[in-house]
């Protein structure tokens, strides 16, 4: 579904070039459940943002469904992101001035084409699915971390994306809630066929996925070191 070919991402840190992602080639197939495992600063988040088209490569190609998307314009990439990619972050990243419901429905506001579903009904359905329909009109800072992460997952699924990218989704949660969230992600993959990419530094978390991709100093390595 998505392929990275010799992808590099280089930043300038002062005068020094930092290779956050260095010559990475990989493929993620539809309906896969994959984790990207690496320590802090290994470039795993940058890799995830590249896969999620939120970042453009310095060189190399990103191919989505057979189409090279590495050189598209901002508005074309935004449109693809809106339709195909859902993000879940460590710190939930909900907008605090909006209610739970308004946060979930946010991606719809940026849809550039007519939708083939009723957004409100879908948002309600997602809230119900994750057991947070009672928090519909709450503001994010008035609900628990676990509930916030469920809202974030609901938002990520709003446009029925092809791929769900989760960046340390359990990092800010206690272990029990963390497990709940991982169960949700797993079930999304298993029961609903959503492609899930989980970025983590925890072996135990990565072990739950069917495939692990190890990254160190921006390069893919055979196993976790």
């Amino acid at each position: 579904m998505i392929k990275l070919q010799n992808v590099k991402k280089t930043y300038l840190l002062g005068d020094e070039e930092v290779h956050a992602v260095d010559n990475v080639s990989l493929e993620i197939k539809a309906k896969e459940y994959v984790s990207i495992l690496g320590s802090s600063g290994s470039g795993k988040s940058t890799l995830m943002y590249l896969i999620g088209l939120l970042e453009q490569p310095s060189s190399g190609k990103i191919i989505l469904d057979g189409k090279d998307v590495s050189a598209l314009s901002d508005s074309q990439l935004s449109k693809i992101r809106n339709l195909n990619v859902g993000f879940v972050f460590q710190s939930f990243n909900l907008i605090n001035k909006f209610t739970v419901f308004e946060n979930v429905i946010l991606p719809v506001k940026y849809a550039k084409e007519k939708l083939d579903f009723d957004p409100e009904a879908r948002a309600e359905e997602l809230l119900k699915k994750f057991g947070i329909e009672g928090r519909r009109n709450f503001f994010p800072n008035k609900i628990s971390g676990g509930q916030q992460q469920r809202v974030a997952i609901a938002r990520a699924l709003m446009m029925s994306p092809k791929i769900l990218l989760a960046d340390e989704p359990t990092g800010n949660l206690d272990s029990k809630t963390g497990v709940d969230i991982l169960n949700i992600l797993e079930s999304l993959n298993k029961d609903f066929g959503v492609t899930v990419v989980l970025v983590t530094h925890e072996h135990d978390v990565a072990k739950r996925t069917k495939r692990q991709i190890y990254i160190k100093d921006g390069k893919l390595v055979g196993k976790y070191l």
Partner: protein
Amino acid sequence: MIPYIHLGKSAFADFRRNKTRSLLTALGITIGVFSVVVLISLGLGLKNYIQQQFESLGANLIIVLPGSGFGGQGFGQGLIGGAKFDEKDVVDLKRVPNVDFITPAFMKSTFAEEGGEKFAVTLLGIDTDAFKLMNLELLTGKEFSRSDNEARAKNVVIGYSLSENLFEAPQRALGKSVAIEGGRYKVTGVVKKKGDNEVDNGVFVPYKTTFSSLNPDKTFFAIHLGTEEKENVEGVKKGAEEVLLRRYDEDDFTVSEQSELLGTFNQIFSVINIVLVAIASISLIVGGIGIMNIMYATVTERTKEVGIRRAVGATQDDILVQFLSEAVILSSLGGVLGLILAGLVVLIIRFFFPASMNILSVVAAITISSAIGIFFGVFPARRAAKLPPIEAIRYE
């Protein structure tokens, strides 16, 4: 394009979170719009007032004034310099063909006293024709006569308000006497209320009577000529100019028709008004800078929000439109508030002065405040749009 409702909702959610800040920022624009609209209204009012005053003068009126006047070298110069007209000019001008009415006008601001009370009045030394030329209709009593003028009789006609001030009622004024600068004058008539302060508080004296003490120079500020037929106005004007050129330089006097004078006055006041409005507009620019400042702060505070929106599919343009619309909403709200305040103030001013608000100032206020929002909002909005999504989303 993001739905407008979402834009509005998002903007107001933000204003609510920063009530004081938003209010103060909008206040900058409120003050600017308020001052501009009030000044435009005062300018319009002044224009209408002058128009009314001129309309109340008689028709086919030609006015001779000292100086090159209102047309040539400027307003002030015309009033300060120039000829001092005297009786000979009046006699000469009377001979101009088709001059049917003529009066010199000696004007003086002074006080009238009666029973220990003192009132500011405008004293006008005129001939009997003035009553016709200046449309001064009597409410009661009679005008002074030509022989009163020749005999320097101390008979006067007074304005309506003055008659009330001095004698409680116009009818009671007849036959009474009033003291002006040491002399005593007998009231023979009262002019109908005109709504013009100078007339309503006026004292109309035969011009020859003023020669004894009020006007020892025996000069006049102006000479008013009138003709029965409108087509004669041009001819009379030309004739008067020829007559005066024999005695004075071209620059020392001006012969104008009523309509020309009105046009000149309007021109002068328009210029003054434009200058005032331009000065007031500076406050609008200051208000705009306030908006820009706050929008920059907002963009920094909401960097993470920008990142989140970008992650869920917002384009750079979507972000630009969002912040721009917030700036425009803020400044338009300020503008509308300024407009409402200006409307209230104009309503109050109307008790004293015929200020008037027109649709133009309303449209201008709203357009200008939105334009300020766009102009000063676009730079911060562009900064927000250009934020790299990853950096934005990681911003704490």
